[in-house]
């Protein structure tokens, strides 16, 4: 991610280190010290300040980036909303990590899922290649005139962030040509055309501003499709709003986010070899959520297993809620159920995934779901 940041060469980076995202900023700070980027690096005293500084720098007309994880993202909370509603196209790497307590540095998606209503575009990545590619696309999406919203590029802590993998990096110039220069709108530093940022709205305007924000994030879907298409034509790697893996004729589909998709693909291949009609739908874009497209992709599926790597305590998982909403109008409506896994870094092995598919086969045969919601790989159940 630091490499993508170096190629993007933003005007300002304001960040506060937190495991497992520390390495991103540490490497980037080296680029700054070595003069490989022209970025102003602001080392702030907290994540709240990091996001505040990002908002100020962005309102001043700069291309701005940062990175964080877990508790750091939580500390940014109020500023996340302000960044989005002030329509500042800030780019942030979120290295997914469990929120305390108990303190845990390992992966789950509780941090970014908790921020799903903040108004940021959220793009998820299965591996380092996708994280890099998503970050190269992120400024083009964020800065598009119909969008102008901040983007979180999320990847799994440690599992991805601390692994090295064979991947393709693009040439600096090719990346810069793809992204193009940034021109801020209504810069605070433009003294010829003074503006006010962060003014007050009462009940006479607040909801109009929110309505506009909703329209902007909705339009991000088609913008992301066209940017991904241009990325494919430029660099040869294809991305859609979500990845459909062997689901065309699949009766049983698993829906998941991030690195676990790799393990699921292996199992899908093995089961396909054994003649089972199974597939994977991997979420890439979680906000805005592509309801209609996902419903269309899952047309024909009879059983859908939704894996959430986070909890919404007292409710079903956040991904499950979206998927079931997307499928409510499907005719015929498939069986849909929810499994929570991987909190705080607990692994989900291929054998576990095999078992999950065995369960979905049983549900298909019996025509009903036995358990709509459950935790996987937890002692005591």
């Amino acid at each position, binding site marked *: 991610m630091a490499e993508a940041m170096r190629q993007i060469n933003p005007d300002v980076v304001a960040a506060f280190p937190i495991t497992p995202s520390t390495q991103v900023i540490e490497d980037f700070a080296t680029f700054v010290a070595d003069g490989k980027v022209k970025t102003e690096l602001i080392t702030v005293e907290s994540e709240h300040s990091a996001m505040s500084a990002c908002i100020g720098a962005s309102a001043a007309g700069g291309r701005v980036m940062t990175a964080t994880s877990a508790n750091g993202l939580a500390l940014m909370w109020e500023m996340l909303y302000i960044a989005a509603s002030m329509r500042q196209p800030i780019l942030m790497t979120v290295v997914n990590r469990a929120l305390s307590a108990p303190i845990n540095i390992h992966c789950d998606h509780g941090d970014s899922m908790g921020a799903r209503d903040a108004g940021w575009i959220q793009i998820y990545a299965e591996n380092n290649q996708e994280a890099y590619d998503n970050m190269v696309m992120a400024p083009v999406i964020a800065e598009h005139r119909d969008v102008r919203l901040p983007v979180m590029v999320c990847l799994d802590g440690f599992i991805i962030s601390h*692994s*090295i993998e064979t991947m393709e990096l693009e040439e600096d110039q090719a990346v810069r040509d793809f992204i193009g220069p940034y021109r801020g709108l209504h810069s605070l530093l433009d003294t010829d055309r003074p503006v006010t940022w962060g003014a007050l709205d009462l009940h006479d305007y607040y909801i109009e501003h929110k309505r506009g924000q909703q329209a902007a994030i909705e339009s991000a879907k088609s913008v992301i499709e066209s940017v991904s298409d241009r990325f494919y034509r430029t660099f040869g790697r294809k991305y859609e709003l979500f990845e459909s893996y062997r689901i065309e004729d699949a009766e049983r589909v698993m829906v998941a986010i991030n690195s676990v998709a790799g*393990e699921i693909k292996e199992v899908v291949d093995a089961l396909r070899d054994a003649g089972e009609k199974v597939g994977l739908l991997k979420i890439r874009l979680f906000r805005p959520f592509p309801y209609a497209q996902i419903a269309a992709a899952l047309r024909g599926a009879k059983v859908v297993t939704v894996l959430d790597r986070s909890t919404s305590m007292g409710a079903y998982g956040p991904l499950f809620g979206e998927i079931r909403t997307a499928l409510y109008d499907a005719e015929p409506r498939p069986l849909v159920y929810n499994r929570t896994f991987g909190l705080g870094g607990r692994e989900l092995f291929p054998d576990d995934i095999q078992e999950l598919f065995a369960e979905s086969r049983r549900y298909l045969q019996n025509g009903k779901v036995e358990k709509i919601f459950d935790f996987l790989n937890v002692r005591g159940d």
Partner: protein
Amino acid sequence: MSEYFEVRWHGRGGQGTVTGAKSLAEAVQGTGKYVSAFPDYGPERRGAPVRAFDRFADKRIRIHIPVLEPDVVMIVDPTLIGSKSLVEGIGENTVFVVNTEKDAAETKRALGLTGQTLYTVPANNISYRLFKREIPNSAMMGAFARACPQIISIEALIKEAEHAFAALLAKDLVAKNLDAIRCGYDEVRNA
């Protein structure tokens, strides 16, 4: 997951175990294979047992889980011998590479191994000779090339490791680490 060649490293915090696994992966990648390497972080303290993993393949690697059934076990710190985790998931064909000056047969007995192949390398000794302190990882990489020439030859390892080290180390240290790889390779004993 037999299409993957999997290596599990066991060391202690501060010995360069994770760096060893990552440098080996970078070197193997240089030979045209797909690779991944990653650590298994627990409490991050000097002296605490650390595991790291390598996965090599001829196709893109999609799985990220820890190595459960290693093709090779790299024991960077012999004081870990006795811990069950070292022999977890091993098979008859699992190869061991152990940093020790003890006799290979004795080390096999200590690990409770039956038919498996085991190589020893005095990596601490090599490290003290070259660096005046205990960083056995480069010597272990050399020993790996001796144990698994089908994955990487010593010539390719030295050539590719030079690139990997150049990104991390000053010039004189790059040369010394390449020496450590060479010594590790040369001083392997086998039982």
